[in-house]
């Protein structure tokens, strides 16, 4: 890293439009980047990190406008220069890697055509040279079949491979600076580290400067030299990566660690008889098998985490237990007696005992109903409450989820924040007075601090009401925080199960090992160490 300054942003101000009014979404951000340096830009949704990243290319999305400050790239003022000159820089000297490669590759052209487009139009190299170069970079990005993969269309290539192909495309003109906008967020945890490692290596090989935008501190710690934290369009703090991880100065930065530091006390008591017992369940959507011979037990008053990557069958298992998808083989026992496979043949009391909380509170709450009816309906239906008794019950439930009843009882879901909506989902489940609540990725759409609040609430309710949770998640940190027992699923099968302490202590099953070791840790050397260990094991 040299001391030579490549990018200097001062007092950047950007406004965004909602309806007819403009409001400031980036409020005076400064940023300095040296040649060959990697800066991590982190923050939660709405922090303005992508907007800042795009502004570093002199670009504002539709509905955004840069209203103040200077953006100086290698001595060129990007706000003052002509659009033609900015175009000359984009793709050639400053490149961009988007969050969703699947959406950002043009579906009508082959990968290699899209790769060659930049260098050819910018006059960096001819078409033939560009193709050779593409194959070389595909190889360096560790893509399978580097000679052939470029001749495929985007829909013929997997998400992790597309993300690497996009990084190769960004490298095509050997730019001085690349903006990475959440490049691994949409990927599974085991794919994420492959892409992360490939990105880190290629940036180092070509000594390219980069801005790495993400909401995940542990991910950015692996790649960045320095980290800047943003909150609602303003800088919170900035420090060298190691210094930031060792000693964050601001409370907000510390809170980003929160969910990882939260943990419920270990249980010492032994589990009672099974509340729900899933026995040899197989299921299929049409002719496509999704579950094969799944068996596990859920115990009263405990939390069982079901972990696995997308497509592992976690949510399908929940659908079988609730009766939405009758299994093709096997049975589900509730307190020892079998539940009818189909929803329609279950009694009202059987339905009451198992409740669901969904990942997206936005789609799980009818936007046209007020909280009074949303929460009151199950109590009215299952417990026969009416009038004053019903209203009193709804108020109790609101108080239980820490929302002031008088303020909230007549609100619509649209008038609540994301975390509050999720709390309403919890209240609606509690209104049925169930024994088991299935939580399907309930925290994964939420920001870190809000996640912590929801987990604390769920834990408190469990202790007070003796609930059992089946907690479906892909996030190992959440499992560590709240689970008593763990089931690991892969491709529709249970590959590992047992009490948390047993699952998290070696020796592991091979897939559990892969899953656990792929979770980024708050240690800048973690990725290097992991890759060395894996290489050593062959």
């Amino acid at each position, binding site marked *: 890293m040299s001391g030579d300054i490549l990018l200097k942003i001062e007092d950047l101000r950007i406004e965004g439009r909602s309806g007819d009014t403009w409001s400031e979404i980036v409020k005076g951000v400064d940023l300095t980047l040296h040649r060959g340096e990697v800066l991590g830009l982190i923050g939660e949704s709405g922090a303005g990190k992508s907007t800042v990243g795009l502004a570093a290319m002199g*670009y504002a*999305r*539709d509905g955004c406008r840069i209203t103040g400050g200077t953006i100086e790239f290698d001595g060129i003022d990007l706000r003052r220069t002509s659009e033609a000159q900015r175009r000359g820089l984009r793709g050639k000297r400053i490149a961009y890697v*988007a969050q969703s490669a699947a959406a*950002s590759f043009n579906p*009508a*052209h082959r990968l290699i055509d899209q790769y060659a487009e*930049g260098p050819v139009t910018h006059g960096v190299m001819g078409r033939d040279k560009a193709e050779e170069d593409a194959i070389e970079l595909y190889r360096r990005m560790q893509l399978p079949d580097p000679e052939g993969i470029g001749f495929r269309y985007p829909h013929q290539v997997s998400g992790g491979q597309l993300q690497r192909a996009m990084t190769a495309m960004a490298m095509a003109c050997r730019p001085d600076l690349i903006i990475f906008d959440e490049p691994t967020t949409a990927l599974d945890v085991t794919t994420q580290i492959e892409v992360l490692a490939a990105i880190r290596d290629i940036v180092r090989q070509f000594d390219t400067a980069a801005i790495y935008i993400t909401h995940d501190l542990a991910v950015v710690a692996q790649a960045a030299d320095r980290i800047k934290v943003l909150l609602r369009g303003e800088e919170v703090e900035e420090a060298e990566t190691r210094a930031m991880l060792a000693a964050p100065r601001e409370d907000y930065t510390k809170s980003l660690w929160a969910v990882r530091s939260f943990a419920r006390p270990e249980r010492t008591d032994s589990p009672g008889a099974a509340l729900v017992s899933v026995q040899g369940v197989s299921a299929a959507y049409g002719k496509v098998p999704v579950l094969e011979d799944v068996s596990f037990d859920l115990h009263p008053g405990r939390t069982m985490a079901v972990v696995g990557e997308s497509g592992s069958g976690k949510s399908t298992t929940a659908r079988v237990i609730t009766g939405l998808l009758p299994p093709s083989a096997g049975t589900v026992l509730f307190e020892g007696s079998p539940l009818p496979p189909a929803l329609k043949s279950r009694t009202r009391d059987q339905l009451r005992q198992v409740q669901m909380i969904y990942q997206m509170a936005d789609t799980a709450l009818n936007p046209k109903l007020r909280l009074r009816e949303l929460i009151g309906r199950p109590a009215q239906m299952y417990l026969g409450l009416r009038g004053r008794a019903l209203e009193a019950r709804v108020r109790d439930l609101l108080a239980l989820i820490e929302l002031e009843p008088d303020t909230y009882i007549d609100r619509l879901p649209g008038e609540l924040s994301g975390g509050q909506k999720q709390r309403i989902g919890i209240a609606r489940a509690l209104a049925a007075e169930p024994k088991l609540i299935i939580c399907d990725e309930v925290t994964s759409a939420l920001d870190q601090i809000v996640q912590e609040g929801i987990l604390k609430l769920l834990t408190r309710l469990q202790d007070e009401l003796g609930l059992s949770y089946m907690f479906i998640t892909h996030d190992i940190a959440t499992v560590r925080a709240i689970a008593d027992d763990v089931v690991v699923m892969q491709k529709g099968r249970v590959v590992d199960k047992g009490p948390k302490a047993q699952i998290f202590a070696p020796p592991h099953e091979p897939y559990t090992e892969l899953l656990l070791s792929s979770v980024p840790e708050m240690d800048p050397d973690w990725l290097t160490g992991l890759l060395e260990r894996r290489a050593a094991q062959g």
Partner: protein
Amino acid sequence: MILTRVALGIGLLFVVSLVIFWATELLPGDLASQLLGQSATPETLAALREQLGLNDPAPVRYWNWLSGALTGDFGVSLATNRPIADLIGARLGNTVFLALYAAALSVPIALTLGILSALWRNSIFDRAANAGALGAISLPEFFVAYILVLWLAQTGLFPSMVRINPTTTMGERLYMTFLPALTLTLVVTAHMMRMTRAAIINLMASPYIEMARLKGLSPLRIVLRHALPNALAPIINVVALNLAYLITGVVVVEVVFVYPGLGQLMVDAVSNRDIAVVQAVALIFATAYVGLNLIADVLSTLSNPRLMHRR
């Protein structure tokens, strides 16, 4: 893939012909008693039934009608007793000519306006084009037609009635049919422009267009190379939908301008309750409609690499 779509189209046409045929079965009484009305005697009824083949069971009559239609024999007009094929003959050509004329005018104009207003979104041009289009789709076709008559025919620039005979030259024909074609153009262009604009705006918001911008490509290249290949399918559908709409449009416009086409024929036949003619013309219009949609589907399949290059 394409073969299944074509087979589906043919199947659909078959069903459509069934619906059109089945419509006559809904008649109270039967065709013969409808035709003769008050003057019916048992003898004349029986004779007419025999003549029309009404004594055969419905499936047989359907088969006779369909196989006749396929070979261009639509039977005999109930009102004039002339073969329907003769009535349709030249009129079909006239209607196709008018529709093609209108299409040739409207498609280039509509696509250009639609693409430009999408590119210059929220500009004065866009707002004006949109307000104009919204106005134009709100006007009944005969209103547009008469306004044009009032403006252009009054000045003597163009004739307000179309008199075509076999000796008319192409140039004269184009001149004489200008007003009807312009009427159709105005109505269809508005629809097509709005839909093209919506399709392009939808497309320009996609992440790969942003990516193309961030690769430093020129706006022209972005539109031609990145937007257009993906816009083909929606644009083809927009065009097909509106060409199909022309079919409806010609009926009214032909009446206004006394144009000797199929639409006129059909309207007259409806007034006379000449069901055989109505069926024949309806079958022709429906075939054109289904055919256009089929062609559009096939073309948009061909333009989509996701469907052409399987994993």
